[in-house]
């Protein structure tokens, strides 16, 4: 509605960068710009639902490979690639719990 929204993060696969129970400020339209490796993205994943992950690589087919930051994160090959249409926004700010 406002071109941005907040989401609450559950799970610890993105810690320490995004600790569990953080709030993230998502800007959907930022995905139209060139996304760089390391960008934090909100993605609709067909198996895992709405997830927040870090962009690992854009392959030559234009598909986006995602990864977590924690050692327990679902591995990159298990997540598989996603298309740009599945990206729901870019994380602009992180508000970690105290």
């Amino acid at each position: 509605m406002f071109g941005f929204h907040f989401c609450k993060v559950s799970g610890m696969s993105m810690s320490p960068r995004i600790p569990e129970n953080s709030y993230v400020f998502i800007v959907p339209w930022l995905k139209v710009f060139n996304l760089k490796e390391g960008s934090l993205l909100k993605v609709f994943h067909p198996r895992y639902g709405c997830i927040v992950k870090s962009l690992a690589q854009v392959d030559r087919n234009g598909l986006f490979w995602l990864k977590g930051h924690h050692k327990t994160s679902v591995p990159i090959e298990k997540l598989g690639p996603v298309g740009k249409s599945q990206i729901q926004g870019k994380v602009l700010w992180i508000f970690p719990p105290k």
Partner: protein
Amino acid sequence: MLYNIIAKLDKKLKFPVVKAHCDIPCKIYDPISAQIAVLTVIRMVDLLDELKAKSVLTLDEQAQFLRLVNQKEVHGLKVKEEINVIWGDYIKTPQLTQFPELHDLVHSIMLTSSQAKQNINRDAALKLLQQVNRFAEIFWATKQVPTYTAVCPYPPAEKLIYPKL
């Protein structure tokens, strides 16, 4: 302070949740699925051998032949998957230090499983069972669970390693 404000807003507006998924180890590992899959491969080979003895197959027998081959293929693949999961998710440095043969053993299981899938060969299937049994023995040893060998109480009546719980 900002966090508290957003948290208060969250209580009112119910922000959507994004999951930062973890591949949490469920710790439920058991080689018995792989062992039963090998037994199925052996059983399929036995049933295929029965068909092999006939000079002409009826239509029903041809259909059965296809089903048996298909099941042999499926369970051969299942052996690989089950062993791979335990090897990839459960086996770590302490287990490898304790049993340095593990990598070679798993690789051998993969090769023998392919061999059992490719041919109607009881020897290959039995070799696979032997390797998977050894894997099961090591698996339970890493958990300090003693094992015993017993003949499974159903066809193909081959020896299996069971945990003594």
